[in-house]
């Protein structure tokens, strides 16, 4: 202790002669209990915008952990609560990080079980994860309850920790209620009100501990609370960002295009003669060109989508419809990025071979069309060499969702692919064939929608194809994806169909 220290002690020993109010004694319980209360409040807040449903509970988990870290030396109840809060925060953060990657979707596919709640099907592993988190939170509250009772007992006073007990019971009951899938303000409103009142009561209890100045045996810390909180949240942010970045691209099975002389010279010449675009034809392999064997007519439809903010950077879209036999057509969709997009991440295609179909009277008919599985390739140029990578087009799936205007039901094929990190003149080409059933419909249209990922930040992880299959949720301005919808009508069969009708 130096001279100045002595002077400070001596000076502080006397209050000023003009009698300022006595300083309030320190309140050792205030900070930890405030953090515990705010932690519990934030964990249970669910605001589904601006990622607040992730950020607020994460901050709440850290506050709860920090509050109980200071109290853990006080008694066994608090120590137990602290251990549970640590596990809770770790599991909660792990869940946040996993949601940044495709792992959650892969897990759902691997388990392939769903829980039916009143609001719809929920992946089973999500229910288990929520259950474990809620159990840990309940145990944390139970430890807090026991710890608070211990404090009053130590002070020789009757336990007044009823609010902590009620919070424990409430947390215990919330999980089954969530599993049932309760919705609606009439049900949720009273529960929310009870929860707010319970937290208020817990805040009051902490105030009474403050005012009575109950002594606390706080645990010494090596890392200050601020640094510990920054560490928790920094790890969460860094790991989540890493997860998003690592999930932004798919492996690209690229190889140089074989430039050996074509064996389909005659067919290629015939297709060119019918009006098939030469640049697209030159991208097709002999095997792909063989799909057009017997070509009778070609219809070409070219468009450049310049809406949705892409303007001139949009890919040039070309639809080619080739009639190869009566009622059998081969369709080709080509998307050509003449200028590479600003972000080369993972894009997707949604192919809907028959979006709507109607009969001669205009009545809708079931879109039952025989179709072979689509095939396609991604091509680009780099250093004067053309590279290609096959598209992994998955099994068709039935899509059903309600939009503002109508109910949408159709069968679609999906593929996700990463654009090459380098190179230009990127194009995606996909073709499929249809065998129409004459009596089933006259008029139909089909769609090939391109989904471009325009933002590197996609959280939680979602592929472009999953986003499209879900009905392109979210505002176009805030969505990480750009939906380039292209559709065309099936045109080449009309004459044959009418002929069939006349004969019939």
């Amino acid at each position, binding site marked *: 202790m130096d001279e*100045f*220290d002595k*002077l*400070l*002690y001596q*000076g*502080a*020993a*006397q*209050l*000023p*002669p*003009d009698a*300022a*109010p*006595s*300083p*309030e*004694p*320190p309140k*050792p319980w205030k*900070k*930890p209990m405030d953090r515990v209360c705010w932690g519990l409040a934030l964990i249970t807040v669910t605001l589904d915008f601006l990622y607040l449903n992730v950020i607020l509970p994460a901050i709440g988990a850290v506050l709860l952990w*920090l509050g109980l*870290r*200071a109290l853990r030396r006080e008694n066994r109840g608090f120590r137990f609560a602290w251990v549970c809060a640590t596990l809770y925060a770790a599991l909660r953060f792990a869940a946040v990080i996993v949601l940044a990657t495709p792992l959650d979707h892969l897990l759902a596919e691997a388990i392939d079980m769903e829980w039916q709640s009143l609001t719809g099907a929920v992946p089973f592993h999500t229910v288990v994860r929520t259950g474990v988190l809620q159990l840990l939170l309940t145990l944390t509250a139970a430890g807090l309850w026991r710890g608070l009772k211990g404090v009053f007992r130590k*002070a*020789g*006073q009757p336990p007044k920790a009823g609010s902590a007990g009620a919070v424990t019971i409430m947390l215990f009951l919330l999980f089954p209620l969530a599993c049932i899938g309760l919705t609606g303000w009439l049900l949720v409103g009273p529960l929310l009100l009870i929860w707010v009142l319970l937290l208020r009561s817990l805040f009051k209890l902490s*105030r*009474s501990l403050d*005012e*009575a*100045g*109950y*002594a*606390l045996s*706080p*645990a*010494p*810390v*090596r*890392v*200050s*609370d601020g640094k510990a909180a920054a560490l928790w949240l920094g790890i969460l942010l860094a790991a989540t960002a890493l997860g998003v970045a690592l999930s932004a691209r798919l492996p690209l099975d690229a190889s140089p295009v074989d430039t050996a002389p074509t064996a389909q010279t005659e067919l290629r010449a015939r297709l060119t003669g019918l009006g098939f675009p030469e640049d697209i034809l030159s991208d097709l392999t002999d095997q792909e060109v063989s799909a057009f064997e017997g070509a009778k007519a070609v219809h070409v439809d070219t468009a450049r989508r310049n809406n949705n903010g892409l303007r001139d950077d949009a890919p040039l879209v070309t639809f080619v419809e080739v009639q190869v036999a009566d009622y059998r057509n081969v369709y080709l969709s080509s998307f050509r990025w003449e200028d590479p997009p600003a972000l080369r991440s993972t894009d997707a295609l949604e192919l809907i071979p028959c979006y709507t179909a109607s009969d001669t009277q205009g009545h809708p008919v079931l879109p039952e069309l025989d179709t072979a599985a689509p095939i396609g390739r991604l091509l680009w140029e780099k250093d004067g060499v053309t590279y290609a990578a096959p598209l992994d087009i998955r099994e068709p799936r039935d899509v059903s969702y309600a939009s503002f205007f109508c109910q949408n039901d159709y069968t679609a094929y999906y593929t996700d692919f990463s654009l090459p990190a380098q190179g230009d003149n990127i194009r995606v080409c996909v073709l499929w064939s249809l065998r129409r059933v004459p009596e089933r419909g006259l008029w139909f249209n089909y769609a090939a929608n391109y989904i471009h990922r325009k933002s590197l930040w996609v959280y939680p992880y979602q592929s472009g194809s999953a986003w499209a299959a879900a009905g392109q949720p979210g505002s176009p301005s805030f969505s990480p994806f750009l939906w380039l919808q292209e559709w065309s009508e099936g045109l080449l069969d009309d004459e044959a169909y009418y002929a069939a009708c006349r004969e019939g």
Partner: protein
Amino acid sequence: MDHSELIRAMKDRRSDALPRFQTAFAPLVKYIVAPILPDGRDREECLSDVFLRAWESIGEYDPEKGTVTAWLGTIARNTALNRQRANERRREDGPPDETPPAPGDGPEEAALRAEAVRALWRAVDRLDRRERDLFLRKYYYYQPTAQIAAELGLSLRAVEGKLYRVRKRLQDELGGVHRG
């Protein structure tokens, strides 16, 4: 917690008031006395002294001027400090001395001392809330750095750093008074 009814009972000299007052505030008094008096027996005796003084001077307590915890906290701190000083004198001189520390040698020095105290508290008032809290814990309530660190959730080094900055600020502001 509303203590007004308890204070009224104390002021009315009701027989059950003091035990209730002791039950309610013993944790607070123990908390304040503990860093100043390391000896357990000293602390117990001091606890009795504090409640005796509180019983005797409850009439002076004015809720308008501050909370009961602040009023009682001051009594507890002063009682503990007096006991600590008495212990020190006893160790140095032999016979116990319960009288408060001697004031300055003369009116001039007393006036200077009072001015220095005023200057210190004015400087403390200019500290921000956290710095003021740190100052009070260290120099008013005599809390050891380890206790401050643990209660504030800071590492020892962080508290030492913050205390250093508080001292530096006070030293800069009080240089004329405390150096001269």
